[in-house]
């Protein structure tokens, strides 16, 4: 199969992340018989060759299997899309053309999936490929389907964990049906919450909260951690095989959520009477308050007084 990797309104963080994949990513492509037609950072073909390639795809002389789009679709200024241009034309036109030719379209990263940076009221006018935040539609419209019958498959994350992409590519190459969540991301990666597998779990359980960074307690109650409300597998499939934000004491910023980046400060939890406004899904508030108060009272000394050295 072949793959075209297009970068639009993004920072190319997802490409960088891919290069950290535990296996050499080129070995990965080779083993899965993927021909990388074009990638802005990794390709070495000439400008002319690139143009010819695009023309071949447009004229249906070459069938495009997989289109990966990194970064959101830029519509600014004022809908013209010229903040992100290619060969004198807005990149969004190229995206539109390629998306309609490709068998599979993958939105790599939160920007491409849901809009991400530049998608809240601003002049960049960034929108996701098939979602704008949590609303279906985006650039290609809610009814868009590729030749394979799938909608745009979203791989949110800022950046993505390289696992997400390699798993999806392997499923596509093997012809396995890809199970999608309601936000069109892969079930098997995105149905966990970041909270599952966090090493500060006991502090969370007993409501031993931190008010400043560099300590060991839970970051959910005051310091802005969105782990319990964000769907991603960061604490299951660790980052760089070693760690994760929350394990390193950084609150989860909810970067895989459709509303990322949120409009309130990252490092502070919006709360009412010391309890976070947003609770883990499915938990009712009054009940939760009573439970957590009890839990805080039951907290063992070793947690309350941070006796543990880790």
């Amino acid at each position, binding site marked *: 199969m072949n793959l075209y990797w297009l970068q639009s309104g993004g920072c190319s963080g997802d490409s960088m992340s891919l290069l950290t994949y535990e296996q050499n990513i080129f070995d990965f492509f080779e083993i899965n018989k993927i021909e990388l037609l074009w990638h802005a950072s990794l390709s070495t073909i000439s400008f002319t060759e690139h143009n010819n390639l695009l023309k071949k795809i447009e004229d249906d002389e070459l069938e495009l299997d997989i289109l990966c789009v990194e970064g959101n679709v830029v519509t600014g200024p004022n809908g013209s899309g010229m903040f992100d241009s290619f060969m004198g034309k807005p990149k969004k036109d190229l995206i539109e053309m390629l998306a309609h030719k490709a068998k599979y379209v993958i939105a790599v990263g939160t920007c491409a999936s849901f809009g991400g940076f530049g998608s809240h009221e601003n002049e960049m006018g960034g929108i996701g490929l098939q979602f704008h935040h*949590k609303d279906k539609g985006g650039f290609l419209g809610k009814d868009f389907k590729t030749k394979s019958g799938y909608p745009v498959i979203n791989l949110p994350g800022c950046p993505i964990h390289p696992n997400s992409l390699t798993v999806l590519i392997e499923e596509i190459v093997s012809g396995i049906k890809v199970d999608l969540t309601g936000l069109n991301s892969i079930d098997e990666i995105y*149905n966990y919450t970041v909270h599952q597998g966090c090493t500060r779990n006991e502090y969370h359980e007993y409501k031993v909260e931190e008010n400043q960074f560099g300590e060991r307690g839970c970051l959910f109650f005051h310091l802005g951690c969105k782990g319990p409300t964000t769907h991603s597998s960061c604490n*299951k499939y660790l980052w760089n*095989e070693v760690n994760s934000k929350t394990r390193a004491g950084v609150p989860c910023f909810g970067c895989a959520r459709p509303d990322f980046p949120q409009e309130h400060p990252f490092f502070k939890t919006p709360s009412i009477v010391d309890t976070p406004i947003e609770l883990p*899904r499915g938990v*009712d508030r009054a*009940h939760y308050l009573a*439970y957590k108060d009890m839990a805080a009272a039951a907290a063992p000394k070793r947690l309350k007084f941070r006796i543990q*050295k880790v």
Partner: protein
Amino acid sequence: MITKNLSQQTYTMPSKQDKKPKLLWIQGHSCNGNSHSFLNLPNLENLIDNFEVIYHPILNSTHSYQEVTKCKLNCDILIFEGTFDYNLKRADISVYEVLKHYTQDAKMVVAVGSCASFGGIFKEISPESCCGLVFDKDKLTPPLIEQKGKVINLSGCPVHPKWLGFVLTAFLNEIKIYLDEQLRPVELYSSLAHHGCSRNEYFEWKVDSKNFGLKEGCLYYEQGCRAPMTHSSCNKILWNETSSKTRVGTPCFGCTEPDFPRKNLFTTQTNMSIPQEVPVGVSKRSYLTMAGIAKTFHIKRLEGKLIDYKTTD
């Protein structure tokens, strides 16, 4: 990573020592699990290059075990694997004599694995003569009780290769290792196996697992998981950089603790459906009340299948 040429030495971790310290690895009653676990250490080649390996049961060594038993050599760091037994001879020589001799000059003695730390599984061979180097289960004991100032216990069955890697690197770089009351490095053994378990939400909301082989549910309530009572970093520093027992649905057997192995390892002892043993340091009464309330929540997301969940609001 894969394409590095292993027959050429690429990078050697700098050591503060002038010449290579001598490492000697000897065994009591052992299954060799710790030796094999150690072979899985990432970058093993670079670490081991900093030592002169006098003897190791698997690795290239400068001497044979037979030569070691003549007790004419010495070592800087002595590693002991397996249960100590006063009556044990290996290669016709008493292991006790060998241990005594090499402990004298060693700057550090590492009891690697639960057998060497506390007695472990093979203590049951002969309970009167078998024990760990400094502890017999949870009681202090000879043979090395007098030298316990230089002993470090790395309990675990087997030991995690990175825990041993940490001690060896600290040794090379003369970094002080802080120990707990069981002589285990606090930086590795202060956390619980429970920290970082991917089933933590199920533990929190007291959703027990109905059987083995399911992603959902906590194994503490019925399947015997001892993670909330066991000191280790298994879910922090993953095994084989990949996983851990509880992440694949196997209950923690508490293998780093002095009482390993217990009985009925796959079942939780309960009293009126509440586990008899509650997490370390939590009062039983508070735990019971918490458990009671937690069970009144019925969070659909946690009661259903993990992967069936749809994220639309």
